[in-house]
């Protein structure tokens, strides 16, 4: 049972690793789809909770894979999922960096840089939508997202300040 689940984690995360242009945010949509709808490892609510934890924690957002792995198959699951999400993309980056330095005058360098940017943008926004859908957001959460996004985009307010205020307000609202 556990072996099947570990193998499942690799089969879900390793391919996503290779297309995570723009980082972990880019593959959130498919992670949600695979772990909730296809594999039934998590409920929508658990997925959104783990997404929230991975954003509140330090480090890259891809570490949501470790949290999912932990939920699916314990400590070993966390290790396996983390390796599956990092190793394929890391090997690709290593190869791409070597190629980059070996082909200084190649016109493909600019084409690669400019051609990957729109892919990343489309995937990142799809990821935001996927979490909003899975969270079955209420009006207060949409309000929070809009205000927080506005602050992050147009001011220098730190994300941890915003998170602390949000966490505190949501906890207090529980007791009203």
């Amino acid at each position, binding site marked *: 049972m556990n072996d099947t689940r570990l193998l499942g984690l690799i089969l879900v995360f390793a*391919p*996503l690793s290779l*297309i995570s*242009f723009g980082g972990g*945010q880019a593959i959130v949509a*498919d992670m949600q*789809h695979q772990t909730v709808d296809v594999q039934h490892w998590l409920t929508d609510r658990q997925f959104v*909770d783990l*997404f*929230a*934890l*991975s*954003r509140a*924690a*330090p*480090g*890259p957002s*891809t*570490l949501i894979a*470790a*949290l999912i792995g932990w*939920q699916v198959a314990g400590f070993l699951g*966390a290790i396996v999922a*983390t390796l599956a999400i*990092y190793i394929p*993309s*890391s090997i*690709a*980056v*290593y190869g791409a*960096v070597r190629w*980059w330095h070996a082909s200084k005058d190649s*016109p*493909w360098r*600019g*084409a690669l*840089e*400019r*051609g990957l940017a*729109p*892919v990343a*943008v*489309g*995937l990142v*926004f*799809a990821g*935001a*939508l996927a979490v909003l859908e899975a*969270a079955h*957001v209420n009006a207060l959460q949409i309000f929070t997202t809009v205000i*927080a996004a506005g602050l*992050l*985009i147009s001011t220098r307010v730190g*994300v941890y300040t915003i998170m602390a205020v*949000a*966490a505190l307000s*949501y*906890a207090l*609202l*529980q007791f009203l």
Partner: protein
Amino acid sequence: MSLEHSPETPRVPLLALMSVFFRVGITSFGGSTAAWLYRELVENRGWLDEDGFVTALTLAQVLPGANPVNLAIYVGSQLRGGIGGAAAAFGMVGPAFCVILALGFLYAQFGNSPTAHAVLGGLAAVGVAMTLSIGVKLARKVRKPVPVLIAATLFVTVGVLHWQMIPVVLVLTPISIGLERMAGRKKSA
């Protein structure tokens, strides 16, 4: 690939490489990794010059994988080849991995309490805002009609219509890069 550096710069010990990224990994909360790395790598240690750092940032962003980890692989492999890249990436991810496991453990204990769920609901809303702000930042580079169309197609097919992400990306990515290459050729001709 470390040839560019080896004659004049001294060989950086693997442990030093790992410990720099380890330190950045535990101190750079909240996505300020690039700023910390700039201070450590360019200003304090001189392992990269300004141009090298900009190239590293650009590549780390467009290639698959997490930005900070990709930066670590770039710098590590520049200085010490593949093994250097692995050491730097391990230093970068290790501390964050331990923190996330601790959070996962707490979630397993307390995740079902209504207050925890309420707080996580708030954090998820801010998390989506972080994703949106990254999307907006990346979108500043996407201005011309064709790239905008490609970004929009990806968003609609994957985000709205729930098409399978991997095939869509495998089709659109080569098209996007190919079109940019053709546009570049036309300009230089």
